[in-house]
């Protein structure tokens, strides 16, 4: 139990801090994240010899301040994460609750759609969509939101079925409540804990996927500082200056680990039993 409280707080601090950085990004960047300065390419971070306090995390291959780019990158990751869980959560929960509540043919259709979604190779199809429509932040957010709903659907379906077997749903039915009333006021509030845990899992997955898509050149377009794109742009220089990929990679690792810790802690705190 102690471990879970510790992971809840560690995760909450990491995610909360990143969220604040994301919200106030334009106020926090010490330099313009897009300003190039070819005279100051590859300045090392402050802890390496030659580093200076003017650029705490150094500069990149065209002399842009790495810390400023990292800060703006946090905003991109958090935007991707939140929009994805909002979209995917809406789609998945709607499907799952309908399937779980009505059962029968509705449920079979829902499960079939989920199977189809699972069979679709996620990265390839996301890459194809972005390649077709053109890469932009909005396209990546939409693509991930439309692709990552299956976990919401599976879990909300299973939990809805559990809840529907309970006495208070039968009582509401007996009292003459309408179906939509039962779904919205009896079922949803009682499965929301599970959905919150799933939201953390999907947020972590969405952030990693965006980074991978941007790394592969079909995600967030340059010059936006997505952490995945920063790694892609810097990777030709990584053998001589490993910090150019270490810094954005570690940022990604810490944020996603924080979200996972938060989810793990929440699952215990909220008593949800979602399978990860």
């Amino acid at each position, binding site marked *: 139990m102690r471990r879970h409280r510790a992971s809840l707080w560690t995760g909450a601090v990491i995610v909360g801090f990143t969220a604040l950085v994301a919200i106030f990004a334009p106020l926090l960047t010490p330099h313009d994240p897009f300003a190039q300065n070819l005279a100051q390419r590859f300045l090392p971070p402050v802890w390496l010899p030659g580093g200076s306090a003017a650029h705490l995390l150094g500069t990149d291959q065209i002399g842009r301040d790495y810390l400023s780019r990292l800060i703006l990158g946090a905003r991109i990751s958090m935007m991707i994460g939140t929009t994805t869980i909002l979209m995917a959560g809406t789609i998945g929960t709607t499907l799952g609750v309908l399937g779980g509540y009505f059962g029968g043919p509705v449920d079979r259709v829902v499960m079939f759609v989920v*199977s189809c979604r*699972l069979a*679709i190779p996620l990265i390839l199809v996301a890459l194809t969509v972005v390649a077709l429509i053109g890469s932009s932040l909005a396209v990546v957010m939409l693509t991930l939101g439309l692709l990552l709903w299956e976990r919401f659907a599976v879990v909300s379906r299973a939990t809805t079925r559990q809840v529907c077997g309970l006495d208070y749903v039968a009582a509401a039915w007996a009292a003459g409540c309408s179906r939509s009333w039962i779904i919205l006021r009896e079922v949803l509030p009682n499965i929301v804990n599970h959905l919150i845990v799933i939201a953390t899992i999907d947020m972590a997955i969405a952030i990693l996927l965006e980074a991978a898509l941007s790394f*592969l050149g079909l995600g967030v377009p340059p010059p936006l500082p997505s952490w995945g794109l920063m790694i892609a742009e810097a990777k030709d220089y990584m053998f001589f200056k490993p910090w150019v990929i270490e810094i954005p*990679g570690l940022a990604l690792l810490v944020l996603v680990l924080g979200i996972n810790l938060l989810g793990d802690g929440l699952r215990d705190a909220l008593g949800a039993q979602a399978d990860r």
Partner: protein
Amino acid sequence: MIGYLLRSLVLALLVCLTVLVISFTLSHIGGNLAINLAGPDASAESIAKLQHELGLDRPLPVQFLDWANRAAHGDLGDSFLFHEKVSHLIATHVPMTFTLGIVAIAIALAVALPLGILAALHEGDGIDMAIGLVALAGQALPSFWLGLMLIIWFGVDLGWLPISGVDDWTGYILPAFVLAFVAIPAVLRLTRSGMVDAIRSDYVRTARAKGLSRASIVLKHAFRNAAMPVVAVAAVQLGFILGGSVVVEVVFNIRGVGYLGWESIQKGDFPVVQAVVLLFAVIFVVLTLLADLLGAALDPRLRAR
């Protein structure tokens, strides 16, 4: 049992068909292939001519039926850019990806099973927590970044392993290890929870009462029961691993199906893209089907469903 089998098969076929329609539609809505092929300076007439030659000016359903008809006869069409049969392209790229996937799932099982058992035996204490943290951290590692870091450490700093391509078996080690991380957390958690349940069960208590050795109880009695869902999940995870091979193949410059798909997407070579998407979908469906059937074969309780 036969009914269950048939139902699963029909469902699997329907899923494949749906993915087929989706991937076909996706790769055809863009419709910029003729423009890509003709080049940026091409006139509207030459683009229209090219579209006509490739049959791209026909209605979408007609193109689909034509393509599906030929696909059913084993002809997946020609690649626009490689000037080769798509089926041939796929066939030459598949072996590398399969080898990579199988080595990766083997590594994942070799790491996750012992760790999961160990965590279950130490349920609630420091070792269990540490292993839980390892699983969480494994889930948070971006695979392309892990790949690059391993290339720096083992390929360049230590010089032990090749950093690109698969000229011999040593080339598979790093990419397979990175891919294994996709499956390790899930397999580990499932092994742990299955073992925790098994250790608390009556038959393990009986075995203990009979005075059997600890090793025999853990491996023969508890693990056998915990292993069943793990087998099923390992099959599904292999599907995810193969789907995730795109990133790793690009990082390590391995010319497998994932790399082929990525290259074709960038160049707008959609006969290849739809074939690769379909291939991964079929593999995933077959693997889940196998997992289902294996589960049913091993556990009579499931057959009743």
